[in-house]
């Protein structure tokens, strides 16, 4: 029906799909003879939100709240509602999302389908842990009300199920109370990877939210240096103000040419960013928006990586040998000179992920962007894959456009149990790729 196939956030791979939006949750989704896949805001980086040769079903029209209980913070809404919209609604009323990722421009359906995590994983676990129930539309025409106690197998398959178990029509989420829209924030510089681990263990006890930015071009004794960011929701700080966020003013207007992001420009950026923080430690209070979603302030920032698009690589390795594995990965990355300025390091905690296919598991997670440089990038990823494999880790499908099928099946041995819960009417580019 439309000539334009929506893209994923990394803008690769390029695909061609028919587009049939699902406008009303009271109607059945547009099932057809071709496999379909729900498409929210396309913030998955690779091909897990794409369906080459099939049908993509935008769900953004399903943007209605269904019910809100101001006493318990239980919010029921349709799957196309965005986290942005929920925060606009909830914050002035003294509530906050239980888990937020690095951008607020994702839909509730997408947050569930990828069982997303945030800076508070060590406390709150994944998004799916806060979903009380969800309504699933299956291709056999059934509407199922899935929860921990009803159709639980489908419930656990749908959390992190990459949209492959049917269409999520609506869901009920437990929000968490706040008394201020501000965050109490501490940021601390660390000189190397050992410095990170020193800070991280302690910070996770004192702070609800923790994350670190790492300079992936630093080598030798400086390997793994960065800035550790920790925060808590402010507790009635004088005014106890509850203020929603503003819409972004800036938009990145064009595709940056490929040469613009190179070893030197990124090195300069990283150098400046690292030393922006003069003192070893800074305290302050900032609004939740720049704390959680710094990149949301520039729309279309993915165009910084130029027309060829970019990859994100997010891995998790178990704590046990994780320090060595993380060091090895950083070593390999810094020598490649390909890394960009967005590298994030965090410890996943013990809360158990509720989805069969959920990515988060206890360990060290590293996420970073790589501009698409063809062969050189592919070779680098092969080496990183080997380290992750060796350490008994895993990669995150929502960020992936290239992991090997055998690796996927090794990282997610439960895939067979999962595939029995899949809806035969659904498929995705990602799924076909890793099953091939």
């Amino acid at each position, binding site marked *: 029906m439309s000539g*334009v196939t929506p893209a994923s956030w990394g803008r690769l791979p390029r695909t061609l799909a028919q587009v049939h939006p699902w406008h*009303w949750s009271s109607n059945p989704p547009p099932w057809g003879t071709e496999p379909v896949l729900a498409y929210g805001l396309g913030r998955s980086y690779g091909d897990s939100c794409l369906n080459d040769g099939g049908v993509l079903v935008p769900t953004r029209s399903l943007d209605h709240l269904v019910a*809100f209980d101001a006493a318990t913070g239980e919010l029921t809404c349709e799957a196309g509602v965005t986290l942005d919209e929920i925060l606009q609604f909830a914050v002035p009323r003294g509530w906050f999302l239980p888990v937020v990722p690095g951008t607020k421009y994702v839909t509730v359906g997408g947050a569930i389908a990828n069982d997303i995590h945030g800076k508070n994983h060590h406390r709150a676990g994944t998004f799916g842990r806060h979903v009380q129930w969800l309504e699933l539309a299956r291709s056999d025409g059934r509407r199922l009300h899935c929860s921990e106690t009803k159709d639980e197998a489908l419930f656990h398959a749908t959390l992190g199920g990459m949209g492959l178990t049917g269409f999520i029509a609506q869901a009920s989420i437990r929000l968490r109370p706040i008394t201020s829209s501000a965050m109490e924030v501490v940021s601390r510089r660390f000189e190397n990877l050992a410095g990170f681990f020193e800070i991280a263990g302690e910070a996770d006890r004192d702070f609800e939210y923790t994350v670190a930015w790492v300079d992936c071009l630093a080598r030798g004794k400086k390997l793994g240096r960065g800035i550790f960011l920790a925060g808590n929701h402010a507790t009635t700080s004088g005014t106890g103000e509850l203020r929603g966020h503003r*819409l972004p*003013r800036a*938009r990145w207007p064009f595709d940056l040419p490929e040469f613009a992001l190179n070893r030197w420009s990124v090195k300069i950026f990283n150098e400046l960013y690292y030393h922006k923080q003069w003192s070893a430690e800074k305290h302050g209070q900032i609004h939740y928006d720049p704390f959680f979603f710094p990149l949301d302030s520039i729309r279309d920032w993915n165009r910084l990586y130029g027309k060829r698009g970019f990859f994100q690589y997010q891995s998790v390795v178990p704590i046990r040998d994780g320090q060595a594995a993380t060091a090895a990965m950083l070593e390999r990355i810094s020598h490649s000179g390909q890394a960009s300025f967005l590298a994030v390091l965090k410890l996943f905690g013990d809360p158990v992920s509720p989805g069969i296919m959920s990515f988060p598991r206890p360990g060290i997670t590293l996420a970073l962007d790589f501009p698409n440089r063809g062969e050189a990038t592919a070779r680098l990823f092969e080496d990183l894959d080997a380290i992750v494999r060796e350490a008994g880790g895993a990669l995150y499908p929502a960020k992936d456009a290239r992991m090997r099928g055998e690796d996927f099946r090794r990282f997610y041995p439960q895939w067979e149990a999962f595939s029995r819960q899949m809806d035969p009417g659904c498929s995705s580019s990602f799924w076909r790729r890793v099953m091939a």
Partner: protein
Amino acid sequence: MISHTHATFNPMPYLEPQGLLIFGGTSAIAQAVARLAAARGDKIFLVGRDLEKLAIVARDLEARSGRTVGVTSADFLSADSVEAVLGQAGKFLGRIDVVLIAHGMMIDPTVPAPSWAQIEECLRVNFLSPVLIAEAAARVFSRQGGGTLAIIGSVAGDRGRRTILHYGAAKGGLERYAQGLRGRLRDTGVRVVLIKPGMVDTPMTAHLRKGLLFAQPETVARRILKSFTSGPETVYTPWIWCIIMGIIKVIPESIFKKLTI
């Protein structure tokens, strides 16, 4: 570079809660207007064809505002049905301050030659039905000595174009009607506002490639809400369309009829 810089919360300040009756309550623009109105405390009554969809919209507004929203389905082409709705809405709202006529439909432009039935439906939905509703609303407003009748027209009504022939003709006719009605109601304190949105990112335009000129329903809704109480009675939204259509209107017919826009 187009960016929407308004905050999405804190709707504009206004005088007191209004009673708002919306025909075509499930349209994307109507929903956006209703959300803003509900957020600032207005009472809302929605009319549409599909009760299930109306219930979805109403529940959303109720969750956001904590106030009950009135809902009914009606035959938009029956004067009796429209009159009955106004009576029902009047009871629910106490007083109808604003009637917003927001329904509309486009003939699928990928169909090479529309059928008689499609053409007739297009004219009925986009012209005949709004006129019937406006007549009924005008009577209510005249009786109560005031009110705002807001009709969603279109920039497509500014000049006849082959690509949206019947839709444009209906919307153009609607503008002539609104002008005449303003004259008839000039001493009654009734505002007759014609809103002419440009291209808006809604299900009605789902088939079109979204260029820079496409506005979000929220942007248009904000402007519509303002027009209920003040400003000119003919409103282009976003404002850039006032300039665009100003140019399009002065192109000589001999040239214009050759254009495939």
